[in-house]
């Protein structure tokens, strides 16, 4: 809890009997838990369990149907620069028309009205953020010309550029090859260590992330719960969660991974 005290003492997320309704349909309910600041937290659940709904609520895009949610002690959406968001399909359509560095700059200035050039301070800050994710050398190229792994770095830079206290990543490893997955995981670990941000990551395949994760929000039978990773990585719980037999295997090197038990 030392980290959470370092950030105003408020929990990163605090759910008090929250329920989510979308299009007149109850998605999940009775969420009551606190996520301390400073951790790397997985958001897991079967397809359609309401993971995206949960993210949207934290981002302030969907109000809680009942109960109360606080993000670092404030209403969701109140501090938009305080959360960085890496969506699942990053800049899928417009990548041909814009350079990577422009996109990261928009992460800093995209909310400001009125015309005007970026200040030297803003430009330096963007350059520093790009360097922090090792994206400096391809920052001036078109987004569409970058590989999946390079694009994911730009997405992370865009999320980090406003100096957020929390970064939310939606399936950051999907559609990446193994090497790029490894690079993104290493990058996340390093950023977490250096910047002390809270990281929330939605992932179907938790295995590449397991060494990093310290806890998880899991959506089970229509209710979100929160637990530390040691409690979550449990055959019975995961089997129930995904509705298919899952085994947790341990390697002689002390690593663990999840697999379908056939």
């Amino acid at each position, binding site marked *: 809890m030392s980290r959470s005290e370092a950030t105003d003492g408020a929990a990163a997320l605090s759910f008090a009997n929250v329920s989510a309704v979308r299009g007149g349909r109850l998605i999940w309910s009775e969420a009551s838990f606190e996520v301390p600041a400073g951790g790397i937290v997985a958001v897991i659940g079967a397809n359609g369990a309401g993971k995206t709904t949960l993210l949207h609520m934290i*981002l*302030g*895009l969907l109000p809680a149907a009942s109960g109360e949610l606080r993000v670092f002690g404030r209403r969701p*959406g109140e501090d*938009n*620069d305080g*959360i960085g*968001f*890496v*969506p699942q*399909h*990053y*800049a899928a*359509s*417009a990548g*041909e*028309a*814009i*350079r990577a560095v*422009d*996109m990261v700059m*928009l*992460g800093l*200035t*995209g*909310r*400001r*009205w*009125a*015309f005007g050039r970026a200040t030297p301070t803003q430009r330096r800050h963007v350059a520093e953020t790009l360097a922090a994710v090792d994206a400096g050398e391809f920052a001036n*190229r*078109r987004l*569409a*010309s*970058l*590989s*999946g*792994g390079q694009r994911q770095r730009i997405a992370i830079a*865009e*999320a980090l550029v*406003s100096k957020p206290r929390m970064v*939310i990543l939606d399936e950051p490893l999907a559609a990446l*090859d193994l*090497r*790029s997955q490894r*690079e993104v995981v290493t990058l996340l670990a390093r950023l977490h260590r250096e910047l002390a941000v809270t990281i929330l990551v939605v992932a179907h395949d938790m295995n590449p992330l397991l060494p990093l994760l310290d806890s998880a929000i899991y959506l089970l039978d229509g209710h979100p719960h929160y637990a530390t990773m040691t409690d979550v990585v449990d055959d019975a719980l995961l089997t129930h969660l995904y509705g298919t037999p899952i085994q947790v295997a341990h390697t002689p090197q002390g690593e663990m991974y999840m697999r379908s038990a056939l």
Partner: protein
Amino acid sequence: MTTHLMELNYQQNWLAILEAPFMRNALIGGTVVALAAGLVGYFIVVRRTAFAAHALSHIGLPGATGAVLLNLPPILGFGVFSVGGALVIGALGTRVADRDVSTGTILAFATGLGLFFNSLATKSSSTMTNVLFGNLLAISSDQLLTFAALLLALALSVGAIYRPMLYTSVNAPVAEAKGVPVRVLSIVFMVLLALAVTMAVQAVGSLLLFALMITPAATAILLTARPAVAMAISAAISVFSVWFGLAASAMFNVPPSFLIVTVACVVWLAVWLVGRRGRHTVTVPGGATDGVVAPAAPTATTLTPAG
């Protein structure tokens, strides 16, 4: 109004024609229209709303032919219908797949309605032709003032919302997460688009509108990935097309709409061909026969090593 241009082939006195008052109006009006097209063209391409732009230019048709029935200026009717259509399309939401079908349906119905109104009137057939193919040479001095005011409003609006608009255009999910009002901006953009379309229709007509509004922006994006520079280049190509098209129409006695559109398309084709060759010869790694190994497939994805 074009009768004194009706001689054949090359016209020796084309410089004199360019100096005639109607031609001066056409040049000024065409420039204003081209600047407006350049201003919104970049966003049309990036937001993938080319079909909506096309639809708005047809939705205005019944407005124009209907206005003739009511003894109102056709361009006023066009503008009202076009902006109305923009509000509807903008409010329909962000799911492009849904929007294409509903937009297309509205488009077809509006065109049919335009035809019907036209058949009710006895002398509005020139309105119909003017809306479909444009008539830059018929711009009056009053219209110039209206166009200049519209361009000013358009430029101020785009200037005021430039960055949030750019952000929602290139990265809607993240912009929305940052609290940018994505939905409101989508409706605002559609209205600005409708105003630009209303102006551009006067120059090249709804059937050729694509080449003045969208082709120059697509050309600019091939040339640069800097949004503000792309908008400037796009406007420059539009202006160049209008000037060159008008001058050539004075020289050869050909409808200006056709020539404006031709210039814009030729510029696009040239840039596309050069860019395509450039990318192939530079980046194919170890390729013995460049351009043959990597055919028309998107070069960026095939040539960048994954990872």
